[in-house]
Each structure stands twice: as structure tokens, then as C-alpha cells.
């Protein structure tokens, strides 16, 4: 039976063409909004719950105080924003502003329609140097500013006060060392009741890697040479940092290894883990235990002192014509100024993105009362002295480093062998460009 014949196919084609034309019309009519008296900008953000509420409040406040300006917000899960932005850029209709993870910055810089904000942040009302060093570093790629800081955090040690008391240990002080950390972890470990001194995430992703990078920096090491051309972590500092991890994971067995990146928080909240290197976002979920927060330990005798790593995120502006770009810049400058930053930090518990707000005693006190330990995380922002290399190859390098760290943690390779192998691979990646 001849199901297919030519005439109906032609009809089908006609219908198809019609549909395409209709779709094209649809795009045209929607994208020609704005203009005239006011400007409407579209912003993609990933806020939920308290953050969403606070952000919506700020947006409506902005619209009320800036007649003619309209801000349309669209919720996009932040994990997927870059994928969606890429699609939208290809389709010719990117949002005017998108919330993008800082780790994407070097790749985001390659998108042609990303607006260069280098001149914008020089305006006095931006007060660019009031943003933390780590934030400015992540918003800048090859000297070009591609975003305005949207969020900042950092890693510190959250410890269980009850478990420290039970083990007869003094709680960590601000001058503690990694030697202290390792010794405490060992004493806090009790296999009989399945209690661990500390934990580490081992999927081998960037989450694995960024927990290790501050150790390298504190030991006085660097990830890459200053020109970002060669690996520099195959060094005594790199060895010291991996030896610290190996001591706990392999020798003392004081470290719970979490392959799924999802269990450690619950375990800490159940009193099964003594110390956790984590960020401020976890604090609110630790409601079952009495916890304290201390800065990351140091390696004595090195230049590194106490450091930490920050994973700042950016507001990135996309070019949809000069009117929209100007409106988007104006909104971001307003959104990230000290008044709005104070409101957002106090309402949501997100760390202040400005140093002036972070050093405001009343803000710190309010945040620390709402969620104990916040004061330490805010002060710890001063310990963010370095950022990950801002190069497009970083995601590939991160994969290599993840494998290196996990192979040491699982006892599959010795620290020096793992360092050498990883350095060789990283050099290849960098040479390939």
C-alpha cells in the first residue's frame, strides 16, 4: 500500500513553511517591546525561597523609584543558566542580565554579546574597589570586566562543639594549623560508633577541587605559573597539601569520603562528623548540632598563612541594544550598592558582597544572631587572597586535579606520583591552548 505519495507531502511542506513563518512573526512582535517612554529589561536569576522574596522586593522598589523602568525576572535554575543563555544567544534573544556562576567567567568572556563593563565599573557610584578582592578577580577576564558581583562565599571549618567537648579537646583557635586539624580529626574518630573526624567530597568534580585549592595556597603553592602557561602545583607545597589529605583519608581513616556529594551535610547534622570544611550556605541546615566556625588552619613556616577560596558569582549583561544595556547597567549599579546589599544580606543570610557592608558592625551582628557563625564567614572574606586561574582551559584542568585528589584520597596513588602525573596532563592541556 502506497502510504506516501507526492501531493500530500507538498501540502505538508506548505503547512511546515506556514508554521515557520508564523513562528518568525511571533519572535518579531515580542522582541520589539520597550523603546518609547520606558525601558523593560529581562533578568534571569536562580533565587528561591527567602532569596526570591528579597529579590522581588528589591525589584519592585527599583521600579517604584525609577519611573519608566521595568524589570522582568525569570527564574532559571542557576546550574542550567549558561546552557540556556547559550541557546538564547544563538537564537538572537539573550536576556539583558543573567546570573552566572563565577567558574564560567573565562568561557562567558568568549560570548560576543557579553557587554564589556570595564568602563562602567570605573564610575564613582560603582565604587568598584569596595567589592572584595576575590569578587573582582572572578569578574575580570584578561583585564576585561565581564560581570558585576552577585554573590560571594568562602570556605571555613565548621565544627561540632559537643563532639569536641566529649573528646576532651579545646575548640579550634584562630591560629590553628593543619597539624592541629589532623590531630583533632584523629581524636574525633571513633569507628565503634561510626563517627568521623572530618569529611571530603569525592566525585572528582570542581567541588572536590576547590576544597583542596586553599590548602595548596596556604602551603605557599600556586596552581599555575603567573603567566598561566605551565603547571606549578607539582611543588613541595602541593606535596604537603596532598599529604595532609592522605594522612586523614588513608592513614588515620578519620575522613568520611562522600562519593555523591550529598551525604556529608546530613551526617554532620546528625553528629557523626567532627569538622567540616564548608561554606556559609550550609549553616542554616545544621539545626540539630551545636556548631562553631573557625577559619581554615594554616601551614606554619610558610608564606601562605590563613587563606580560603571564594566562589563568587556574577551578573552578566548581554547586548540587546544600547538602551537596554544602559538600563541593565543602571539596574545592576543600583542593585549592588551598599543599601541594597545590606538589605539582601540581612534578609537572606548571603554574605555581603561589599567590604563596607561586611565591616558594618550592626549588619554583622544581625546576621550572626540570625545564623550563628556568620561573623566568622564574613571576616574570612578578608582571607580570600587568590582566585582560580581565569582561563578557558580551567574546566579541563579541574577534571585532572579532581582525579589527582580522589586517587590520593582513595589510596590509589602516592601524593608525589599523583602530582607528577597531573602536572604533566595540565601542561598538555595548556600547551594545546
Amino acid at each position: 500500500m502506497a502510504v506516501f505519495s507526492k501531493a500530500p507531502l507538498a501540502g505538508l511542506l506548505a503547512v511546515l513553511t506556514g508554521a515557520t513563518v508564523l513562528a518568525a512573526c511571533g519572535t518579531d512582535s515580542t522582541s520589539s517591546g520597550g523603546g518609547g517612554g520606558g525601558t523593560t529589561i529581562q533578568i534571569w536569576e536562580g533565587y528561591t525561597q527567602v532569596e526570591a522574596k528579597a529579590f522581588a522586593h528589591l525589584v519592585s522598589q527599583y521600579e517604584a523609584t525609577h519611573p519608566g523602568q521595568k524589570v522582568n525576572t525569570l527564574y532559571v535554575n542557576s546550574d542550567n543558566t549558561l546552557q540556556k543563555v547559550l541557546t538564547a544567544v544563538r537564537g538572537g534573544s539573550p536576556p539583558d542580565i543573567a546570573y552566572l556562576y563565577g567558574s564560567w567567567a573565562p568561557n562567558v568572556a568568549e560570548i560576543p554579546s557579553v557587554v564589556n563593563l570595564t568602563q562602567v565599573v570605573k564610575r564613582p557610584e560603582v565604587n568598584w574597589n569596595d567589592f572584595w578582592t576575590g569578587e573582582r578577580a572572578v569578574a575580570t577576564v584578561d583585564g576585561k570586566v565581564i560581570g558585576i558581583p552577585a554573590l560571594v562565599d568562602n570556605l571555613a571549618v565548621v565544627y561540632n562543639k559537643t563532639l569536641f567537648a566529649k573528646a576532651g579537646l579545646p575548640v579550634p583557635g584562630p591560629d590553628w594549623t593543619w597539624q592541629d586539624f589532623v590531630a583533632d580529626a584523629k581524636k574525633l574518630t571513633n569507628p565503634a560508633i561510626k563517627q568521623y573526624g572530618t569529611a571530603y567530597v569525592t566525585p572528582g568534580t570542581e567541588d572536590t577541587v576547590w576544597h583542596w585549592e586553599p590548602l595548596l595556597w596556604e602551603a605557599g603553592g600556586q596552581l599555575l605559573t603567573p603567566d598561566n602557561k605551565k603547571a606549578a602545583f607539582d611543588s613541595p607545597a602541593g606535596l604537603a597539601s596532598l599529604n595532609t589529605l592522605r594522612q586523614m583519608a588513608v592513614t588515620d581513616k578519620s575522613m568520611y569520603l562522600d562519593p555523591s556529594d550529598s551525604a556529608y551535610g546530613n551526617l554532620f547534622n546528625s553528629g557523626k562528623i567532627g569538622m567540616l570544611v564548608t561554606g556559609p550556605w550550609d549553616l542554616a541546615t545544621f539545626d540539630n548540632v551545636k556548631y562553631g566556625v573557625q577559619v581554615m588552619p594554616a601551614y606554619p613556616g610558610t608564606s601562605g598563612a590563613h587563606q580560603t577560596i571564594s566562589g563568587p558569582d556574577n551578573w552578566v549583561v548581554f547586548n540587546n541594544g544600547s538602551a537596554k544595556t544602559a538600563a541593565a547597567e543602571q539596574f545592576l549599579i543600583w542593585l549592588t550598592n551598599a543599601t541594597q546589599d545590606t538589605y539582601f544580606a540581612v534578609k537572606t543570610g548571603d554574605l555581603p558582597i561589599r567590604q563596607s557592608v561586611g565591616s558594618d558592625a550592626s549588619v554583622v551582628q544581625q546576621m550572626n544572631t540570625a545564623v550563628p557563625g556568620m561573623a566568622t564567614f564574613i571576616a574570612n572574606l578578608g582571607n580570600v587572597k587568590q582566585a582560580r586561574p581565569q582561563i578557558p582551559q580551567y574546566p579541563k584542568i579541574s577534571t585532572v586535579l579532581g582525579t589527582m585528589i580522589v586517587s590520593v584520597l582513595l589510596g590509589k596513588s602516592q601524593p608525589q606520583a599523583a602530582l607528577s602525573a597531573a602536572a604533566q596532563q595540565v601542561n598538555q592541556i595548556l600547551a594545546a591552548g
Partner: protein
Amino acid sequence: MAVAVRRPAARRPSSRRPSARRVIGSEQFSGWAFVTPGVVIILLFGAVPIVWSAVMSFQRNNLLSPSTPFVGTANYRKMIHDPVVAQAIQHTLVYTVLFVPGTMLVGLFLAVAMNRKIRFISFYRTAAYATMAVSTISEAIVFIWLFDPSYGVVNYFLSAFGIPPQQFLNSPSEALYVIVIMTIWGWTGFSVVIYLAALQGVPQQLIEAASIDGAGPWQAFRRVTLPLLSPASLFLAVWLTINALQLFDEVYLSTQGGPLNATTVLVYYLYIQAFQQFNFGYASAIAYFLFLVIIVVTVIQFRVGRRFTYYRS
């Protein structure tokens, strides 16, 4: 049958060109008219990306920058020298070889057990199918905790038999098998339903005839029931294999390809290449390689399966 059939209209010379009204009124036209919306959607969201990714597989393309140089077969040649691709192929094959027969056997066993009149049978049937209704994320979280090296129930049971605790998802040599078990559990409901439906179609008189001829229950199952289930088995084998070769969700949710790439399968690796490392050209090449593998495997399955499949007409 010698009934006089009216000659088809098209044979008559006067109406060689069908009039417009006749075309619109024809069954073919209305058929196409009905399926057009579906066809448009499939072309738009299926065919276009398929063609586009074929083009991308010959480019160096990160989707970010507008420059997308044509690199010929470089992406395909790169696969040959990429050790992770070799690992991913190996993991995908091991997974498929264990998952497909595993799911079919467990499903067949449960379906046979439930193909009888016992109390609460509909409850059991619903329970078996519930594994399909549970979302993959819940499934993954439950299995992560079941197989947790320190706190998991599985190690607790093993210790009751004197077996030392296993590292499971933390062990490069065990993680893939945990994912096999997890996905067999998740897909069992599907194979139970297919087999149950097929079992309903096995005529009781054939089994009675076999037992009158002296066949025991096992022989009757082996010689009568199983051959009659063969179309269902072939369907399941093909369907589950295609799904197995495309394993992603469970890996993404439980191990993220780790530890040390032990659970990196092809689709997960192409996801990493595309969306973490922005090598869309290379990822497209891997996708096309997988596409070829699936076609070849499916054709072989149909060829071989035809020999063992019995269709009652």
C-alpha cells in the same frame, strides 16, 4: 474469491491527474493532516538538532564564540586516542551486558510469580510497577544511603554473614555494579508489566496439552511458555539495550562518573565534554559514535532475535 472488483479510478485515462477536491477528500490527505502537528514538532525538535549536531561533529565549536572552524574528522580521530573514551565504552558495555539480562530475568521471575490467582495480587502488581513511578532522583538517594560504606544497610547485612564492609560507590571496582543494581531495580517494573501482559496471552490449553503429553511444570514453562514470550523478550532486549547504552541519570545523580572515572559511561562523558568543558564538536562526535553503536546493536538484535522469536499468527 471471484467477486467482481471495480477498477481503481486511477487506471481510467480521463482522471490521471486527481482533482484538488479528490486529494483533499482522500484518506491519505486526512491522514497526513492529522499527523502534521506531530511531524512538525518531531522535525523541529528531533531532526533539526540531529542534523545540526552532525554538522557540529566536524567543527571545533564551543557554542560560545562565533568562530567554528571546520576540522574534518579531527573530533572522530581524537576519540581513538582518548583513554577516557575507551574506558567509557568499556563501562557502557559491561553495564549493558549486566543490566539487560538482569532486568529481563528479574522481571520474568516476578511476572511468572504474579501470573496466578493469589490474594492481594493487584497490590503486588502495583507494587512491582511502582519502581517505574519513583523518580530517578529519589531512587538514587535511597540507593546512595543503602550502599553507604559506613552507614548503609547493605554493609550491615553483609556483616551479619561475616563479610567485611565494602566501599561500594567509593570503590572504583564496585561502583559500576552498584549502579547496575540500582537501575535493575528501577526498570524491573517495566519488564514485569511487559511480561505479565505477554503471559496473559499464553493459551492455557497449550500448557494443558503439554502436561497431558507428560511435560512437568518446568518443561511446560521451558518448551511452551518461554517460546510464546519470545516477542516480548525481543522487545525488552532491544528497548532495554537502547536505554542501557544511553545511561546517564543514575550516574549523574550518584557518582558523577567517579570514583576515578569508574562509572563514566559514554553519555555521561559526552555531557561533561559538552556542558562542563564546552567541547560541543567533540561531544557531538561521541554522540554520533554512540548512535552508530546503537544502530548496529539493534540490527544485530533483530537479526538474531528473529531466529528465536515465535509469532503466533
